[in-house]
Each structure stands twice: as structure tokens, then as C-alpha cells.
């Protein structure tokens, strides 16, 4: 369910960006179609559909790494909160991650942290896009 929502959001990010067939477009389309862990080629190069946060989380699951990822996600979240552009789900994700960490489920905590950090980062991307692009929605 949550995944679907971010998928929709990702799709929408695509349609609101101006340039055609950029790497971001291709990435987002592939991601929307296949989810994470899929490979695709773009201009001769092979890429995966993982978000940077997911790549960062693809390390050994232990207390130390989980704590680091959670801290990074919280930091990113604090930045988007300061812009007044945070998404409702992120707070819940951070809580869920902390709970998993406390319960010793490091893998789960790390995956959730990655998702939370991605949300927070996208919120910031959205903020900056909104500042520039709000004008195009105004009727003439």
C-alpha cells in the first residue's frame, strides 16, 4: 500500500518535470514498472532501479549500521520539516524503524529507514520544484 503511494508520487514527479526522456524519466518509469532490484539500460549503460537510500541500506544488517541509517533518515526528515514540506507517512516510518531497531530486527529497520530518508529527500526535491514550477499551474 505504502509502496503504491510512493509509486504514484514518483510517476507524478516524472510528469511534472519539464525535460523529455532524461535519465530521471527513464529511471522513474523503470522503477514504477518493476520496483527495486531491477536492471535496465539507458544510453548503453546498465543501471539498477534502486534509490540511493536503498543502495546505502544494502550493507550488513547490524545494530551499528541500522542506527546510522536511522540517524541519517532523521536528519533528512528534520531538514524537510524545516521547509514545512514533510509527508505524513515519514514520521510513522521513522517510528517503525526505531521500533524494529529496538527489537533487534536490523534488516527491517534499515529498509524502513531507507524508505523514510527517500521520502524526506523527495519532499525537499518537491519543495524546490514547487518554488519554481507553481507558476505554470496558474490559469492565464
Amino acid at each position: 500500500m505504502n509502496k503504491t503511494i510512493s509509486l504514484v508520487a514518483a510517476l507524478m514527479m516524472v510528469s511534472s518535470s519539464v525535460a523529455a526522456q532524461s535519465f530521471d524519466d527513464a529511471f522513474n518509469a523503470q522503477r514504477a514498472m518493476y520496483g527495486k532490484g531491477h536492471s535496465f539500460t539507458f544510453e548503453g549503460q546498465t543501471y539498477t532501479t534502486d534509490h540511493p537510500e536503498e543502495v546505502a541500506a544494502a550493507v550488513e544488517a547490524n545494530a551499528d549500521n541500522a542506527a546510522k541509517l536511522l540517524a541519517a533518515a532523521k536528519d533528512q526528515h528534520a531538514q524537510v520539516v524545516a521547509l514545512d514540506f514533510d509527508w505524513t507517512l515519514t514520521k510513522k516510518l521513522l517510528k517503525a524503524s526505531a521500533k524494529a531497531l529496538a527489537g533487534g530486527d536490523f534488516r527491517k529497520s534499515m529498509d524502513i529507514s531507507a524508505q523514510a530518508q527517500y521520502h524526506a529527500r523527495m519532499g525537499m526535491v518537491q519543495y524546490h520544484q514547487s518554488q519554481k514550477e507553481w507558476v505554470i499551474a496558474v490559469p492565464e
Partner: protein
Amino acid sequence: MKIIKSMLVGASLALVASVSHAASSGNTLATVDPEADRLALQSYFQKRFPKVAVSDYVNGIYALDAPSREQWQEIEEFPPYEFDIEEGEELFNTAFANGKSYADCFANGGEGIRQNFPRWDEAQGQVVTLELAINQCRESNGEKALGWKKGKIAKISAYMASTSRDNVFDVQIPNDAAKAAYLDGKQSFYARRGQLNMSCASCHVAGANILIRADLPGPTLGHVTHFPVFRSKWGELGTLQRRYGGCQKNVRGTPQKTQGEKFRNLEFFQTYMSNGLVVNGPGARK
């Protein structure tokens, strides 16, 4: 189901794209022209719904959708907010501990003045909404401020609106500071936010009368005229800014502060867009 959802959102996005032109009114303090914005918005809706009279937009979605209009008219036969107007009148006329009352805080004893709110307050250097003025009145008379979203404040606001029915909205932008607040509100209205990446305009300009899941969003023209509203969903009366918070949650964003600067500026912009239309609050909505 999930696919349908993304398709619907996609459809409304496509519409956004089709109305995206360079606006004649600018996005800087030097170039922004509120009156041009207002006329552009009116002509946008007139082009999309040529059969709907501008004056009918005070009825929100019911100006556009006949089946829901019929149900709404049945509700308006005996609207649920009548109890709230009565209670609001009582609250309004109840004296504070110091013997003064709301009537002492407002022009014309508080009657028939809804159309002038929100207004730019030069002394305070900020936009003052009717609800803010109500609480400022309380605090200056040594009373505790009321909660912003529902209950007493909404009832008092509803009563004050009811004494102003058919008065024409006349929000003034007297100087550059006020214009800056207007511009900030305009930007808030058109800026996308939340996980669903939608702006107020996604639903209430481009998306007006287009199904978003099972709902038909109302047009922003005339949007504020009928507030506060008794929403069947709430089962009670609520203020405009309560609804703002709800909308921001609907697009999966954390709501901004009720009666904070952002929301007050948004209300300033949105009400200016409805200048020339009449007060018909309080209203009943689904």
C-alpha cells in the same frame, strides 16, 4: 484499484498540463496583479463551464454537478447548521467577564461584516482572518483564546457570516506589504506538496468537477464564501482552515499551522479570488 487510482491522478495531471501557460499576472511582487488573477480565474471557469453563471459559484460543486446539487438542496431545506447559528448568536451576545462583548471589537457591532475578512491589518503587519479577529477580541478582553478549528469559534463565525449573507466580498489589498501576503498565498495555492504531489489547484482549478476517487472537488471560485461549513463527514461545523489542514493531509502532507502565516495568506488570496461574489455562509457540504 491501485491502477485506477494512479490513472485518475494522472488524468488530472494531464489537465494541469493543458492549462499551463505563462500567466499574464506575474510571480514577483513587482509584477503580480491580483485583479488580473481574479479575472483570469473567472474566465478559466467560464470557459470550462459556459452554462454556469459566475454568481452560482458560491454554491461550490453544486454549481457544477446536478445530482449532488439536488441532494444538497434537500439538506438546505432544513440545514443542520441552523442550531450552530443559534448557538453562535448566543455566544456572540454573551458578555465577557469585563462586561464588554464581541460587538465592541468589530465595526458595525460585528454585524454584516464577514465580506471584509480576511483583511490586511496595517498596525499588526499581517493578514487578520475573522477567526483570528475573534480570538484577538477575546484576548484583549482578558478571555482565553478559543480552539481554531471547530466548536465555539466556528459557531461565532457562522453567526457572523449569517448576518452578512448576500453582502459582496470585498477583500482589499491596500499596499505592497499586503500584496506580498497575497503573493505568498497565491504561491501556496499553486505549489504542489505532500506525497501525492498535489496543489490546491490540482483539485480545485484543473480538477474541479473531475472524479478523484469517489469525490468531485469543488471549484476554487466561490470556495470560501460558504464557510464555516457543516460537513456531513465531520457531522459538525468547522472553519475554512480546518478544511485546509484536512486537504493537506489528503495529499499525504503534514498540515501547516492553523491560523499560521501561511494559511492566513492562503485564505487572503483565496478570498480575494472570490471578490464580487456574495457571502452565503455558513453552508452544508458532504
